């Protein structure tokens, strides 16, 4: 049985997304009846929080920019404290189609983390040049490490089941690229199963991916460093967390 939509929390990290967040929240709530949607406003200076709330989302506002990792940990903690069974991370810029969420949830029966992969044959999302190579190298390594074929480890569309959710509420990494790469390493080392499912992406509403070779090299370098630290780091266990609020009665 897949996790019911009423037990699923959609988490959207958002930084200055006032132009898109309203429509994305509205579409998500329309496409996925019964689902809860939490927008984590990651230190925006515009009206992101206000618009998201008006569109029907729960909104948690970070007092300063925490990065995607920190924003997601807020989401995982909220989900854990309120008894949700699954968390699905969706970008607030509209590049993910909410209609693909049930596909991800269906796979949570057999896996603890499901990645919505962009290059796995569905859709026409393309990245070319050095950045593509950087992503390929990372994916190849993480595939070998986790023993599952992963083609898009930096995707921001992923579903997390109950087991990984508890782990991530405590140990979701907040460092640069930690949310994509290190989180997979942490999950795998804690015994979670990782899977991927092909999804179609829409073009980004604003901005284009970088094709600058220097930037791509820096990106790959930082990713490799992040990966090394993730691999040599102490394995995380599920330990008592002192800063926990009691769930509302």
């Amino acid at each position: 049985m897949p996790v019911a939509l009423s037990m699923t929390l959609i988490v959207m990290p958002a930084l200055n997304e006032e132009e898109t967040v309203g429509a994305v929240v509205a579409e998500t709530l329309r496409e996925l009846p019964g689902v809860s949607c939490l927008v984590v406003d990651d230190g925006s200076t515009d009206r992101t929080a206000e618009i998201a709330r008006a569109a029907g989302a729960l909104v948690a506002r970070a007092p300063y920019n925490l990065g995607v990792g920190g924003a997601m940990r807020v989401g995982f903690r909220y989900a854990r404290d309120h008894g949700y069974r699954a968390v699905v991370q969706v970008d607030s810029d509209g590049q993910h189609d909410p209609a693909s969420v049930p596909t991800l949830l269906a796979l949570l029966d057999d896996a603890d983390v499901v990645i919505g992969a962009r290059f796995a044959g569905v859709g026409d999302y393309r990245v070319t040049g050095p950045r593509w190579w950087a992503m390929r190298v990372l994916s190849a390594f993480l595939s070998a490490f986790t023993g599952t074929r992963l083609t898009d480890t930096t995707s921001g569309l992923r579903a997390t089941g109950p087991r990984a959710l508890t782990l991530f509420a405590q140990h979701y990494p907040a460092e640069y690229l930690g949310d994509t790469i290190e989180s997979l390493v942490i999950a795998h080392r804690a015994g979670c199963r990782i899977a991927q499912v092909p999804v179609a992406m829409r073009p980004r509403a604003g901005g284009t991916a970088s094709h600058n070779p220097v930037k791509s090299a820096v990106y790959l370098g930082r990713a490799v460093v992040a990966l090394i630290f993730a691999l040599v780091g102490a394995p995380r266990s599920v330990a008592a967390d002192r800063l926990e609020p009691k769930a509302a009665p």
Partner: protein
Amino acid sequence: MNPVTYALGIAAASLTLVVVAEMLRRRKLRERHAVWWVLAGIVALAIAVFPGLLTAASNLLGVEVPSNLVFFASIAVLFLVCIQHSAELTSVESRMRNVAEHAALLELRVHELEQRSSSGDAS
């Protein structure tokens, strides 16, 4: 040794100790951070008053130029203090991040409770 140089050494070491002591007294420096500076200041003062100590230590360790021993020890202390500071900064950052996440969740909860209580008043 030139008496001016001798006095300069003592003055510099004393100044360091006085500054550290005063900052501790004003609670601008915690003891755990001050301990290195107090130790370094005391050693510097001892050497300034009794330069023979430095010569003896250099001979003992086989350092030919005594001032090189001073440079070596100073750099080693500064290096270790820097590492300690980096480590503390890391832990402070991670605590701050925890508090920020906690604050975000509490604000959301306050918002939910406010809405619940206002809708309760209306009915």
